[in-house]
């Protein structure tokens, strides 16, 4: 991958002491890296994490790094991962921190690439990579303060009664909808509320409602997982994965309405919603997380 030379305006604290321009990683940076590795080796010896997991982002909390990282991301990564980082040919990166990735792990993945895939390695200076890490982390993390109120035990009852048929949280739940075990790490309170109150407004790829009508008139409703000009792959409401050749179907009907019903205040009160979000947060805080 050709290195993109950006007219970067990194904030001063970001430039010093390891970054002085574009080119090979300066010796200071390499030394810093080795020091980090040494620290990580200690972690390794205690079985806590692998070497790269233990690395801390030197620009943690620096808003300038987030801005710089965004600019870098748009030039170098967006072609595959999308300008919004939600993925095109490469994967969606907006929920990886919620899924448990560490700063150090993401840094090392950008540095080394992914063996056997199209994701290349990078020889850009450490600070540029850390800036990209900062940006990606800013996309996919939500302050736990947002979900601090509510009663988790009552929230569990709301979940069991309304959500568990299709969603999993911790060890229990259904398979049709997304796993919600770590969802409040990456979705804001406003986003979660909208998705529960008006799910049809935000159907994601892989979760769009479709009905296929077979040649004998049977209607099968489910979620569209993939489609091309000749075939369609769905998970139907009985959780059955099934592919269909369009030549064998009478119709494929895309639907504007989500398979998930709307849970307005009449079905889930504001208090119940508060409790539910608190419960989902408690799941990844260690209460029943897988």
């Amino acid at each position: 991958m050709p290195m993109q030379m950006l007219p970067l305006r990194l904030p001063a604290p970001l430039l010093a002491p390891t970054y002085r321009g574009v080119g090979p990683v300066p010796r200071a940076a390499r030394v810093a890296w080795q020091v980090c590795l040494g620290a990580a080796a200690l972690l390794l010896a205690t079985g806590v994490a692998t070497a790269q997991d233990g690395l801390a982002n030197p620009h943690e909390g620096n808003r300038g790094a987030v801005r710089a990282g965004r600019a870098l991301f748009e030039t170098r990564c967006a072609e595959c991962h999308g300008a919004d980082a939600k993925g095109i040919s490469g994967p969606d990166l907006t929920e990886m921190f919620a899924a448990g990735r560490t700063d150090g792990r993401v840094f090392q993945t950008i540095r080394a690439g992914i063996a056997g895939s199209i994701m290349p390695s990078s020889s850009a200076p450490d600070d540029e990579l850390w800036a990209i890490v900062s940006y990606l982390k800013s996309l996919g993390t939500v302050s736990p303060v947002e979900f601090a109120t509510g009663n988790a035990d009552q929230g569990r009852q709301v979940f069991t009664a309304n959500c568990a048929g299709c969603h999993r949280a911790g060890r229990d739940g259904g398979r049709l909808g997304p796993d919600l075990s770590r969802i409040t790490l990456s979705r804001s309170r406003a986003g979660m509320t909208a998705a529960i109150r008006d799910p049809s407004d935000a159907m994601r790829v892989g979760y769009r409602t479709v009905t296929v009508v077979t040649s004998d008139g049977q209607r099968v409703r489910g979620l569209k997982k993939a489609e091309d000009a000749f075939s369609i792959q769905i998970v139907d409401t009985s959780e059955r994965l099934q592919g269909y050749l369009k030549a064998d179907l009478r119709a494929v009907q895309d639907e504007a309405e989500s398979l998930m019903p709307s849970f307005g205040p009449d079905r889930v009160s504001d208090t119940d919603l508060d409790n539910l979000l608190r419960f989902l947060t408690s799941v990844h805080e260690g209460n029943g997380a897988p």
Partner: protein
Amino acid sequence: MRVTRLVALTALVAVSGPVGLAAQEPAGGPTQAQLLEGFTDPSRWPTFSGDYSGRRHSPLTQITPENVGRLTPQWTFQSGTMARGRGFETTPLVWDGVLYVTGPNNYAWALDARTGRKFWEYRRELPDDLTYGASAPVNRGFGLLGNQLFMVTLDAHLLAFDRTNGNVLWDVELADYRVGYAATMAPLVVNGKVIVGISGGEYATKGFVDAYDPETGERDWRFYTIPGPDEPGGDTWPYTGVRERGGGGTWATGSYDPELNMLYWGTGNPNPDYYGDDRLGDNLYTASIVALDADTGIIQWHYQFTPHDVNDWDPNHVPVQADIMWEGRSRKVVMVANRNGFFYVLDRVTGELLLGKPFTDTTWARELDDNGRPIVLNDGSKGCLPDYWGGTNFMPPSFDPARGLFFVSARETCATFIPQKPVFEPGRSSSGGTVWVDRDQAYGALRAIDVTTGERRWEFRYPTPSMAGTMSTAAGLVFTGDNEGNFMAFDAETGENLWHYPTGWSIWGTAAITHMLDGKQHVLIPSGTNLTSFALPD
């Protein structure tokens, strides 16, 4: 209809508690009883070998010697991942029109069997300090039970997935990958347990076979392939301090006899591979086959193919079961075409050796003595044995019970072994020397062995040794591949080549599978980054 029901159900569960929509009509995966049925339902390929016998012999007969010449590709799936020249070495599982496929670098997919299109994809975030897993970043397939899939990883973990969406349900460590362990084999689900083996015999490791609870991931039992000093076989390791790094990996999927409730499993080379002076003795149970009680993991019998192996001939082969007539009476047998160049038939109840005869040109030994021990002529220092990849390797063979023929990719090779004392460090390979392979003399062949005599019925030669497994069918066909990338079909009776298709990459370490779909017999072969499905044209 379904719309109304969905809304009604949602309303219902809102008042009645945890009974969800999905729980009403589960489209379940195989029960343990259905796994026992093996090939009974021709739409399925539910375990690594298709059924528990390890025969990889399908009852399907739509594709015949007469029409196989018209076999046509239906679709190709591209994994997009490959490392160190190693691509697909997997056996896809087939259930209800869906393929469950693992790939290199611990990728995995659920694919539409009609089109090869993806329902979901999984990729494991692997540490960058893998040991054995970095040198062979492959995977041989899933195990399946109910709605759960099981896959082992290059960092030596066992994962359970939800079959519907690919979500990881649990994740347990088998062993510490940093020492040298890795896992690549396809788990075998038996009696409601997930049976797995381990790789890493090129490092200072100690092999084992494990059984896990499919629901919780808790370990039920572990059988170490190297006994303790006071256990039977312990005296075959007279040197102290060697056992804990003695090798004996278990990295090929075994077979299972439900009637005897016995697992049959190949155990790998002792470590160091080539340098044996530090580990004198026979080194049980390395380079052996072991029979284990499936409920407890307790060893029932063993047979060691290569006592004190110094040629890396780890018999990590699928042990193939059959009930055959032997000297006038029916015997339950288990058969192995071994890396050391011998073909073996053993009584699978008692472990008694019935037959042991070379199926390749072996120069290390030509016969076994009365106790079933090889009469060794050459330890490898003089050259021209099977090389360290062996007379065959882990690629699955197949067995046609109607014809009594065992089909195997034979490798005719020649090498000189130069042992050297290694340094033992956790995470550092300790093969103990080097091997000079004489490639000019090497060739490969598909061979059919008459299992009652060990004699060769026929062969078909290739210019270089093949690493492709075989799959046979009741129609009298044998499917296999070669190092040059041809996927081929042969007449099981005569060995005549009936069809070939150049796939573009070596067919390596895996074999074909077959299943019915929409009234058509499909044959699938993984090759390089591709998985291709074939069927007869309309």
